[in-house]
């Protein structure tokens, strides 16, 4: 399990770096796909099977296809070069390292984990065993349509607005900028 985590995490990191550092946009997109898939694996490790599936379907599938499609459409090519020693990149990298170290310190020392492998403080009713017994998708669905109904509906509205907005923006009416 730790091995799977190690491989997946390593791939995710490589994918992420690939996104940022690739000189061609298409490579970035492909790196992102690698990252997404690795994350889906990690989700599986975290007993979030449904989300892993959604991750593959929505992200690696729909979103990334859209990206690649746009890249192909616009074919921007290697329009910019990222110098590894660019000041901004160096600073950003430094900040990223510091950020990671801080979070790492916080997670390693700040928040202790009890012997049962769970966090201190209140535990919820949704232990993985319970959820799996009831069914992952069922639990999620029940929650979504009862407790989180309002956010769910709002999100659906948001998707609608986004769809309308995208259509509006894509219409050839007048130069946007």
């Amino acid at each position, binding site marked *: 399990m730790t091995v799977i985590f190690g491989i997946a*995490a390593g791939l995710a990191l490589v994918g*992420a770096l690939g*996104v*940022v550092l*690739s000189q061609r*946009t298409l490579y*970035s997109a492909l790196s992102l796909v690698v*990252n*997404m898939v690795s*994350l889906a694996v*990690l989700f599986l*490790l*975290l007993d*979030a099977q*449904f*989300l892993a599936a*959604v991750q593959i379907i929505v*992200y690696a599938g729909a*979103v990334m296809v*859209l*990206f690649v499609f*746009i*890249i192909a*459409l*616009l074919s921007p090519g290697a329009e*910019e070069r*990222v110098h590894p020693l660019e000041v901004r990149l160096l600073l*950003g*990298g430094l*900040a*990223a*390292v510091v950020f*990671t170290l801080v*979070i*790492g310190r916080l*997670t*390693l020392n700040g928040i202790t984990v009890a012997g049962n492998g*769970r*966090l201190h403080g209140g*535990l*919820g*009713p*949704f232990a993985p065993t319970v959820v799996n017994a009831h069914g992952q998708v069922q*639990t*999620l669905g029940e*929650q*979504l349509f009862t407790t*989180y109904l309002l956010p*769910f509906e709002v*999100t659906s509205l*948001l998707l609608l*607005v*986004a*769809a309308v*907005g*995208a259509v509006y*923006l*894509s219409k050839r009416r007048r130069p*946007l*900028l």
Partner: protein
Amino acid sequence: MSGMFPGFLILSAALFAIGAVGVLVRRNPLVVFMSIELMLNAANLALITYARYTDTMAGQIFALFVIAVAASEVVVGLALITGVYRSGRRLDLDELSEMSE
């Protein structure tokens, strides 16, 4: 298993930081968008990790919403980018800036 909890979080932080660097460094709006997706995914990872280790469902639900929002964001963002491209301008954020002099 419990020993991996910090590992997930640190990975999440690292991905988030890399995404942030991408947003700050890259000039291509498409890559910036991808970096944003990367950050959102990192957040999702953190959310799901916490959900897993607190025996709650809220993290997963929230991650679901994040995915939905990210999808709509990508749709609008890409529409914007095509609009910009069609207006005949280079896809370079520095040159698109209206705020600089």
